[in-house]
C-alpha cells in the first residue's frame, strides 16, 4: 500500500474519522426520534454560543491538553502511559497541601508552587511504574493501570479520613481562600461570565509549545524518539534506555499533574473525591487522535472539550437525549479516531493514488 500524502494523513484522515463518528452518532439520535441536525446545532451553541459555555469548553480543553500531552510524551519514548488519571489524582494531593499550607497568601505566590508541588506528586506517581519498567521489566501498561486503582483507593482514604475537616459532611478537604486560588479568567474578561476557565489554560498552551520544543528541538527529545522507534538502536547510540524511561515517565506524570492545578487550584479550591473524572483517560484518545503531535493534541483536546461542554448542553436542552447517549457519542469519536483510526487509510490511499496508476498504464 502506498503511504498517504502528508496533508491527507494529518488533516483529511482525522477529519473523515470525526465526520464518520458524527454520522453514526446522528443515526443513534435519529433512532430515539430526535433531529440530529438540531442536536449538532445545540451542541455547537453550547460549546461556543455564549460566554460561559465557551469558558467551560476551554476549561475542559485545558484538562485534555495536559492529559493528552502526558500520553503523547510517553508514547514518543515507546511507553504507553495509561495512568494520567491516577497521576493527576495524586497530584491533587500536592496541590491542596501546598495550598492549605499557604492558605490566605496571594495566588501569584501560590500558583507557581502549586505547579511545582503537583508536578512532584504526579511525577513521583508515574516514576514508580517507570522504574519498574526500566529495572524490572514490568510492563508499563499493566503497572500504570494498577497505579490508577491504587491512587483511587489511597486518595479516597486520605480525603475522607485525613483531609476532611471536622463537621463537614461531604468527602472533601478544607477549602482554599479566594485569594489563594488560581484566578479564573472571568475576573479579567467579562465574556466568560461564571465559567471555571482559569489561568491554567495559558499554562496548557505554553505546555503545547514546550512539548513541541522538547521532542523536536532538543537532544533529549532526539534520544526519546530514538528510544521510542528502536530501543536497540538507542542503546547502540549510547542512550541509557533505563534512565530515559524513568525520566520520561516522571515528566509524563508531571504533565498529567497539571490537570490537578486546573481543577483543585483553579475551580474547586478544595480536594474532592474523583475530581479528575475521566479526563486522564480522555487524554489517551486525545493523544492518539492528535498523533502525539502538540498541534494535533491541541486540536483534538478542543474537539473533546466541545463534546464535553456541548454534550452537557444537549442533555439539558433535548430531554430525549440522556447523559448516557452523550457518552455514547463521545465513545464513538474515540472509537473512530482512536481504535479504528486507520480504517479509512487503505481506501483513501487507493482513491488518492489511482490517477497516477491509470496514467502510468498507458
Amino acid at each position, binding site marked *: 500500500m*502506498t503511504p498517504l500524502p502528508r496533508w491527507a494523513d494529518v488533516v483529511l484522515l482525522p477529519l473523515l474519522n470525526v465526520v464518520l463518528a458524527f454520522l453514526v452518532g446522528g443515526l443513534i439520535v435519529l433512532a430515539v426520534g430526535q433531529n440530529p441536525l438540531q442536536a449538532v446545532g445545540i451542541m455547537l451553541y453550547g460549546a461556543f454560543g455564549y460566554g460561559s459555555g465557551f469558558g467551560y469548553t476551554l476549561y475542559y480543553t485545558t484538562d485534555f491538553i495536559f492529559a493528552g500531552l502526558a500520553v503523547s510524551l510517553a508514547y514518543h519514548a515507546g511507553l504507553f502511559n495509561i495512568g494520567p488519571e491516577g497521576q493527576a489524582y495524586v497530584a491533587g494531593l500536592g496541590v491542596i497541601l501546598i495550598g492549605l499550607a499557604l492558605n490566605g497568601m496571594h495566588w501569584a505566590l501560590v500558583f507557581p508552587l502549586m505547579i511545582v508541588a503537583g508536578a512532584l506528586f504526579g511525577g513521583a506517581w508515574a516514576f514508580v511504574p517507570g522504574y519498574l519498567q526500566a529495572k524490572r521489566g514490568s510492563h508499563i501498561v499493566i503497572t500504570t493501570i494498577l497505579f490508577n486503582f491504587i491512587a483511587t483507593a489511597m486518595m479516597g482514604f486520605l480525603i475522607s479520613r485525613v483531609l476532611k475537616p471536622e463537621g463537614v459532611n461531604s468527602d472533601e478537604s478544607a477549602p482554599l481562600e479566594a485569594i489563594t486560588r488560581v484566578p479564573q479568567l472571568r475576573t479579567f474578561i467579562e465574556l466568560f461570565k461564571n465559567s471555571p476557565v482559569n489561568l491554567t489554560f495559558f499554562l496548557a498552551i505554553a505546555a503545547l509549545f514546550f512539548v513541541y520544543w522538547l521532542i523536536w528541538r*532538543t537532544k533529549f527529545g532526539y534520544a526519546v524518539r530514538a528510544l521510542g*522507534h*528502536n530501543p536497540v538502536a*538507542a542503546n547502540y547510540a549510547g542512550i541509557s*534506555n533505563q534512565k530515559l524511561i524513568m525520566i520520561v515517565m516522571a515528566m509524563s506524570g508531571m504533565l498529567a499533574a497539571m490537570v490537578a492545578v486546573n481543577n483543585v487550584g483553579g475551580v474547586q479550591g478544595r480536594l474532592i473525591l474523583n475530581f479528575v473524572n475521566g479526563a486522564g483517560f480522555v487524554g489517551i484518545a486525545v493523544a492518539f487522535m492528535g498523533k502525539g503531535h502538540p498541534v494535533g493534541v491541541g486540536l483534538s483536546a478542543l474537539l473533546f472539550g466541545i463534546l464535553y461542554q456541548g454534550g452537557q448542553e444537549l442533555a439539558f436542552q433535548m430531554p430525549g437525549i440522556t447523559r448516557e447517549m452523550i457518552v455514547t457519542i463521545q465513545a464513538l469519536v474515540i472509537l473512530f479516531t482512536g481504535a479504528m483510526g486507520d480504517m479509512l487509510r487503505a481506501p483513501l490511499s487507493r482513491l488518492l493514488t489511482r490517477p497516477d496508476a491509470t496514467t*502510468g*498504464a498507458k
Partner: protein
Amino acid sequence: MTGLNPTNEQRSSGTAASALAIELVGINKHFGPVHANRDIHLAVRRGTVHGIVGENGAGKSTLMSILYGFYTADSGEIRVNGVPQKITDSRHALALGIGMVHQHFMLVDNFTVLENVVLGAEDSALLRPTLNRARDHLKQLARDYGLEVDPDAIIENLSVGQQQRVEILKALYRGAETLILDEPTGVLTPAEADHLFRILGKLREEGKTIILITHKLREIMAITDEVSVMRQGAMVKTLQTKDTSPGELAELMVGRRVLLRVEKGPANPGKVLLDVKNLIVTDDFKVPRVKNISFQVRAGEIVGIAGVAGNGQSELLESIAGMRDQLGGTISVNDKVLSLEGDDGAARARAAGLAHVPEDRLRMGLVTNFMAWENAILGYQGSYGEGLGLDIGKARSTAEDYLKKFDVRPANLDLKSSNFSGGNQQKIVLAREMERDPDVLIVGQPTRGVDIGAIEFIHNQIIKMRDAGKAILLVSVELDEIRSLSDRILVLFDGHLVGEADPATADETELGLLMTGSHSDQVITEPGTLPAHETPMQQTLVEMSPKDNSGRDTN
C-alpha cells in the same frame, strides 16, 4: 513499443513455447512516479535454474511479486506453461504451480515443521488426518530432494538453513512446479548455501523449474543455466550462464566496469590501538558466547574475524562497542581501559575513540523511522548543540556532507531512512562512523544485503581508513570479504579464537575447517558414503569438504 520487437533470445525461446514454464511479456508496473518494471520480457525454460540478477531496486522483487500475485501489473501478460493467466493472489499462483521462498521466512516459530507445512493447506477440519498424510508426503519429498528435516522439530529450534528447507518443503507440498527463491543465501553460512545448491540441483533433475533472485554472482555462475540481468526496472539482457563471466554480469548490472577484487597495498601496522584481554561475554540468556578471548589490533591494519555465524561474533562486537556487559576481561582503546558497564556504555566507547558499524543496520545502526539527517548523527547527538537544544542546522550540514562524500542516493536529507536501499543505508552508517575520525573502527558485516557497486565503494572506504592509520576490526560471515580485506585473519569458533591465518597464504579449506572447529586430519572426503552424522557440526564438516567446493570459486 518494444513488445513487438522481442530480442533474439526471446524470439528463439518463443518458438518452443511448450518448453517454457513461465513467460512474462511486456510487464509494466508503476508505484506512483516510480516506474519499477519497464516492459519486461522474460522466458524461463522448464527444468532449468534461471537466475535473475540486479542491484537493489532494479525491480527483481517487484517482478517476482507480480508473478506471485502480490501485485498486479499495470500492463503485460503472464503465461504459465504457455497459457496466459491473470494471477490474482498467491493462492492462485500456487494453484498454477508457482511457489515462492521468501527472503524473510514466513514460518510460525512455535509450530512444528509439519504444522507449518500444512498451515493453510489443511484439507479437513480435523488436523490429525492432514498431519498424517502430510508426514508421509514429507518423507517422500525429503527422500527425493535431500530435504531432510525432522517433521516434529519446532521451527525456532532449527538453524536458518533448516528453516529455509521447510519453506521449500512448504512450496513443494503445495505442488509447486516452479520455485522462486528470493535472495536465498543472504542468511546462510557457506556450508548451508552449498547444501541449498545441492537441493536445487536435485530439484532441477526432477524437472522442477527454479527462478533464483540474487546479487551474488558466484552463485549465479555455480548453479544457473540461464541468467537475466535487470537494471533500473528494465531487463538488460538474458544470457547463457556458460557463455558469460562474473565480470560481464557485474558490468551489465551496474552499467559500468566494476572491480571485483579489492585493490590494496601492504599493511603498515603501528602501535596497538585496540587491546582485548581475556574477554568473557554472555548473551541475553546469560550463556557464555565469548570465552576468554585476547587479541590486539594495531594502527593501520585490518584484523578480520572469520567464523560461522553464531559463534560469538555478535557478542564480541557488541561488547567491544559497549552495548553488552562483560563477565570478565578488559578492553582498552589507545592504552586506556574502557569502563562499559550500564546500558549507556556505547557512549563511553565512542568518547574513547571507538566507532562501530553494527552487523545489523536495520535493527541497530539506524532508526528506520528517522530521516537521513537524524540518522547521520545517531550516537553523536550529544555533540550537536550547546546545552539542551539540538543544533539542527549543524546536524543537517554534517549530514549533507556525509551524503555527498559517500554518494548516498537519493541525497535527500529529509527522506525517511527506511526508504533508502540497503546499500545506501549502509553508506549512511559508514559515513557517520568513519567521518568522525575514530582511532578504532569495528565493522560487522559491512556489505550484507548491499549491491555490487556499493560493495566496491565500501571496501575501498575501509581500506582508506586503514591507510589513514586506524585500527580496524572486521567481522563478516563472507569468507571472501574477510580474505580480501584483512591483513590478519583470526578464526572464531564456539567463542574461542582457534587460529590465526595470513590471508595471502590461507587456504579456504583450511579456514573452513578451523571455522567448524576441526583439523584437516579429520577431514572426511566422501560425502554420501558415510553413516548418518551424529551432530550438526559433523554434518557441516562433511558439507565443507573440498570436493563440494570445487568449481565454485569463480572469481
